[in-house]
């Protein structure tokens, strides 16, 4: 072999070796980086995702509100309300952000008249009624757009979705498994691929979950059809059709993007809300109460916020 051909051999070998090495070694990458397609040619949804919107506060278009719970201020107008005691001590952290809304079409939720009244009651009694505050399983679709990351583990016959909130999870059966004999909080999910869209049909719900913190609700006749469509490797369009003849006069649709969490070391962390809501749920049953103003089961929150020495407003300005 001549010197030239030897050099050529070495060069070609090096290139081919590099290619083979790349193609047979699974690159060590974080959850934030994924090939766009799985081995079986489907869009690769595996990874950690999160919405970046205000849907969990209220699916519908709304302006910012002074607090998650408010009361009349000096004026009798809703727009001049002030934060109510349960959230007052949190200051600006308790403000509800405004939103363009995620309800498609005219932005209205087509409640029956009776259901519309119940929705308004729910909103007025948010703290007492929202199952989220009790750390109950969030249901579908709410689990998707709660403001915490969730993880998709996509296999060929099953897709597991794991939610930070309350360690909730569901299995999406791509293999057409028959439903359970009982109602559930998270529903029974059966999925199929329609081109590059994952379509999930969810049934077998109970009537206990809500759709947001604004009191939007459903009955046990809820039927949800979700569509997950890649917009790019790192964003999905999430479209949900909601149907429930007991509550709505017709089906309606919400839609929003879901974004991939791109931190290379992203992972779900424990969100132990069963533990952390015990005081909220059972504090009134303690022998010696920690929150002092329980009146029966009613929590009378009496906020005392002492300003620490040196932190009064004029002192802060002077620093």
């Amino acid at each position: 072999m001549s010197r030239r051909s030897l050099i050529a051999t070495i060069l070609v070998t090096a290139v081919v070796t590099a290619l083979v090495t790349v193609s047979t070694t699974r690159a060590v990458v974080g959850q934030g980086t994924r090939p766009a397609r799985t081995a079986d040619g489907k869009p690769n949804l595996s990874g950690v995702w999160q919405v970046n919107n205000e849907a969990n506060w209220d699916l519908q278009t709304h302006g910012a509100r002074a607090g998650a719970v408010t009361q009349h201020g000096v004026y009798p107008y809703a727009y001049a309300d002030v934060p109510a005691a349960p959230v007052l001590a949190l200051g600006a952290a308790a403000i509800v952000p405004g939103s363009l809304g995620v309800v498609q079409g005219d932005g209205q939720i087509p409640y029956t008249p009776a259901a519309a009244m119940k929705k308004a009651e729910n909103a007025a009694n948010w703290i007492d009624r929202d199952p989220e505050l009790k750390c109950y399983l969030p249901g579908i679709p709410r689990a998707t757009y709660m403001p915490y990351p969730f993880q998709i583990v996509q296999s060929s016959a099953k897709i597991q979705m794991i939610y930070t909130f309350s360690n909730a999870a569901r299995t999406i059966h791509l293999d057409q498994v028959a439903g359970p004999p009982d109602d559930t909080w998270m529903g029974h999910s059966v999925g199929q691929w329609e081109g590059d869209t994952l379509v999930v049909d969810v049934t077998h719900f109970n009537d206990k979950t809500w759709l947001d913190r604004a009191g939007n609700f459903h009955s046990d006749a809820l039927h949800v059809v979700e569509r997950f469509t890649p917009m790019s490797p790192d964003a999905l369009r999430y479209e949900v059709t909601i149907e429930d003849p007991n509550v709505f006069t017709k089906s309606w649709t919400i839609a929003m993007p879901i974004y991939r969490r791109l931190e290379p070391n992203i992972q779900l962390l424990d969100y132990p809300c069963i533990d952390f809501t015990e005081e909220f749920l059972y504090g009134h049953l303690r022998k010696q109460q920690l929150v002092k103003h329980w009146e029966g089961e009613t929590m009378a929150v009496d906020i005392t916020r002492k300003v620490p020495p040196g932190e009064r407003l004029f002192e802060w300005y002077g620093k």
Partner: protein
Amino acid sequence: MRKRLLEVLAVVGMVVAVIVLLKVAPARSASTAQGLKTAWGDPDLQGIWTDDYQTPLQRAAKYASKAEFTDEERAELDRQRASILRRNQRVEVGTERDVAGAYNAVFQSIKHTGKRTSLVVDPPDGRIPPLTSEAKQRGDTDRQFRLALLQATETCKDGDAACAGGKYGARSPKYHELPPFYNTGRLNRSDGPEDRSMTERCMAAVLPDFTGYRRIVQAAGTVSIFYDVGQGQGWQRVITLDQVPHVASSVRQRFGDSRGHWEGNTLVVDVTNFSPKSDFMGARENLHLVERWTRVDAKTLDYTVTIEDPTTWTKPWTVKQEMNRQDEQANRIYYEPRCHEGNYGLPALLSGTRAEEAAFAAGKGPDPATKDSATDFGTEGGVDALTGGG
């Protein structure tokens, strides 16, 4: 030129072949489960799994020199165990003890006797290694506190086994003290949720776990396991296969922090960052697990876990469990973990105790401290031949 090109291609071909063989060969030679791979080439651990057989965690003293039962011995043990039907005996109807034993044999499934005499495979005697003196001290302190709270009850008056090491007498001053450690078991007191057990608070699940069912779903780079355990106290686990370090030690989680990697056909998982609120046989935040999950054949998934905590045991120990594949259709019934959502028991325990205190204060009832809400009398009434006798 053409000859040279052929020479070049031949050399390149050989080099490539060697590289490919080197990369693929180790995995193939370790493979006993041909075809049990995912579409993307990882070992396939997926499905619903449980241990179909009953094997005690530790080997009973009477089987000290015996690692495995014969088929005849298993059949005989099955016969003896089926005849016991634990919890089917009722004590005096309407008493607290009767209510405590409400979960009778109808609620208890008895599995067939397994082949091995213990789940513990290391140490070879099938026994959990001795506790460290520090752990013994912790255990004694905890036990003394629990006994003090039982002191004024009928349980101690009657000399019940639950009061062993304690005494009967007036209500202990400890009745108004904090437990020495964050409580995870049943105390004979219901001042608040923290006095009740993790089971009553719907947080019973721990890792490692040798009960219940697992549903495993995999993707490239991730293995997820749903543990269906307890009564609706299931939980979801995600094992990251990325080679990134564990989360910071300031992050403490009920089920720790899992990092996995493949060694041939075996998923090896390192688990750290446990919480002081989670208790596995006395081990808490210092618990360290190394798990090995291996798909042996179409119907079997081997699970071994090495359990280490130098503040609890004098040396690490290892448990092995053979998990059996379960039918997807027969197990389709949803295993939603909704213990918390339906937990009427915990507020009832607390409000019941408040009512008893009010009645006692009004001179209309006994001191709640004289009643026992900590002892599970339901386990009385029979000895399992598999574990009994030491």
